[in-house]
């Protein structure tokens, strides 16, 4: 009779870290934020339930425009990262052998040993008006005067693609590695051109990896803060900046909470749509990641 409670206790203890982690760090804050997002300030230190924070988002163009811009740019960054990462992953998975393969993966990993902030500052050193690229252009006489490459959308996209590349390459290389060489050869043998083999055999095989990498990169990009702020400056206009401003600058926590919930909804909706469009399930995608 004593065995059963003991077993249950063991199970509880084993699960405790996971339950605590999920409960305290994920569920609880989100419930808190959800509740907070529905409270309106009716008088100093007096709050009442209401949808005012959400209405504010739709009535102020700056908010929803930033929101739409963040969504669009994140999709663009994800697509660019995919296009850049695919040939790299293909090379790592299918061409490189042994030590070269390990070295290439290490090379992709290397930038992530320093913090995101330091990596972004690295880009700033290269791109700013007094930076390396500007100096080289001036010194070689290609430009008449110094050029500012920072504080535009191009710089933001560059930084975000750079930051997402590794998270795209790893699941892609994993997916491509499992493709049997004979299947690719059969694709050529039966008359397929390089493009046909890529389109009809390699890409469909890599689809779970493509979706997994895209979800990870998209999530990291849409929730990124430092890169758009540092490389975009006041032109960055990333939605996380709006959340930051509400929480920290304006001290309007209910408004920030509403923005936070909206961002969560947006990224979930886009991921769901992406999965539907590619016909992948979250289960197979998670396996690949």
């Amino acid at each position: 009779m004593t065995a059963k409670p003991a077993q249950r206790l063991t199970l509880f203890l084993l699960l405790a870290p996971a339950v605590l982690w999920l409960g305290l760090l994920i569920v609880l804050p989100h419930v808190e934020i959800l509740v907070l997002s529905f409270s309106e300030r009716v008088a100093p230190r007096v709050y009442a339930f209401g949808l005012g924070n959400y209405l504010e988002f739709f009535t102020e163009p700056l908010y929803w425009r930033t929101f739409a811009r963040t969504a669009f740019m994140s999709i663009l960054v994800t697509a660019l990262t995919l296009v850049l990462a695919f040939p790299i992953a293909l090379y790592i998975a299918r061409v490189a052998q042994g030590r070269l393969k390990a070295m290439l993966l290490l090379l992709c990993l290397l930038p992530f040993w320093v913090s995101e902030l330091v990596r972004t500052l690295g880009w700033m050193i290269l791109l700013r008006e007094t930076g390396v690229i500007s100096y080289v252009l001036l010194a070689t006489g290609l430009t008449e005067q110094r050029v500012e490459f920072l504080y535009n959308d191009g710089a933001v996209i560059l930084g975000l693609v750079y930051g997402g590349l590794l998270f795209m390459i790893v699941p892609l290389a994993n997916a491509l590695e499992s493709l049997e060489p004979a299947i690719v050869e059969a694709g050529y043998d039966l008359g397929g051109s390089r493009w046909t083999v890529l389109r009809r055999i390699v890409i469909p095989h890599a689809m779970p990896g493509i979706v997994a990498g895209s979800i990870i990169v998209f999530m990291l990009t849409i929730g990124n803060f430092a890169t758009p702020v540092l490389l975009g400056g006041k032109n960055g206009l990333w939605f996380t900046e709006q959340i930051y401003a509400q929480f920290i600058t304006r001290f309007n926590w209910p408004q920030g909470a509403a923005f936070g919930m909206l961002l969560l909804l947006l990224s979930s909706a886009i991921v769901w749509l992406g999965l539907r469009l590619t016909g992948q399930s979250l289960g197979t995608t998670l396996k690949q990641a």
Partner: protein
Amino acid sequence: MASSTDLDIVNVTKRFGAHAAVDDVSFSVAPGEFFSILGPSGCGKTTLMRMIAGFEHPTSGDIRIRGQSMLGVPANKRPVNMVFQSLALFPMMSVGENVAYGLTCRGVSRAEAEERASRMLDRVGLKGFGERRVTALSGGQRQRVAIARCLVLEPTLVLLDEPLGALDLKLREHMKIELKQLQGTFNTTFAYITHDQSEALVMSDRIAVMNQGRFEQVGSPRELYHNPETPFVASFVGETNRWQGEAAPASGGAIAVRLPSGAVVQGQGRAASGALAFVRPEAVALAQDPASLSTLPNRFEGRVSAVLFDGAASSLLIDTAGFEQPVRAVLPQAGPLAGIHVGAPVHLGWTADAMKVFAA
């Protein structure tokens, strides 16, 4: 230009570093022929086949299909299709899409490709399988899809790289016959590579036995079995007894071989000093009474040391005075010696014609 051969391999050599995987090989395959390349693993047969398919390029020599040199022609432009060892069906496509793939690559319209694919599936006995996933097929069905995928393109030559290796024994026996029949109905030239001598013997019109990058002998299954030209062919194709000894002169055009024990056996062939002698188990005559073997030049006496029962392929091992290894003979399953058991004394013998002698 019309050509009387479908495939000509002319002095083809392939080197990987200093190692010659294929060493100066030449042969021709006639239209409609079932040609097999038989050899142990690592003999270079896969490299040879990959060169014909266009995945490897010969170091020297020429590969011609219907008289046209294939050097510099990429794999996807050659009138050659391959059935891979792993079959390499496309798991991301249905059965019908697998068969239609090659046609759509050639620019055949989608509707026509589907139509021709489904007709081809009918012909290989897979009517109505077009919508299935390839992963939902049995081994034999996958085999037929792999062949249908090649045949639908009406290639000059189909290459088969040990495609039966992954099947269980019963299905393999069945597919041997089915492959041969398919080849007959489509009248397509097949080049088949295998390490399994039974597959080669059953299906082929001609077989090339390959060893260490070279062809040892090319001939019909019967020629290879009954008249091997080299000791390698004699021992690789079919079961055989093999003895080593010294050549000694003999009368009547025969050659004698003196075994280390001093026993002398007589056979046909050529050897100067060291000699290798081969006798097929089915050529060894057995008797209880020595008188019935009196016409044979090779007569010995032994004792059964093992009965290896395997249905029609059963054999006996006989410890025989003068031979270091037991002599292998076919187990008699009818007549006076039926039911012979371990330990029984027996007389054995064979004709001089049945024993092939080669220089060692």
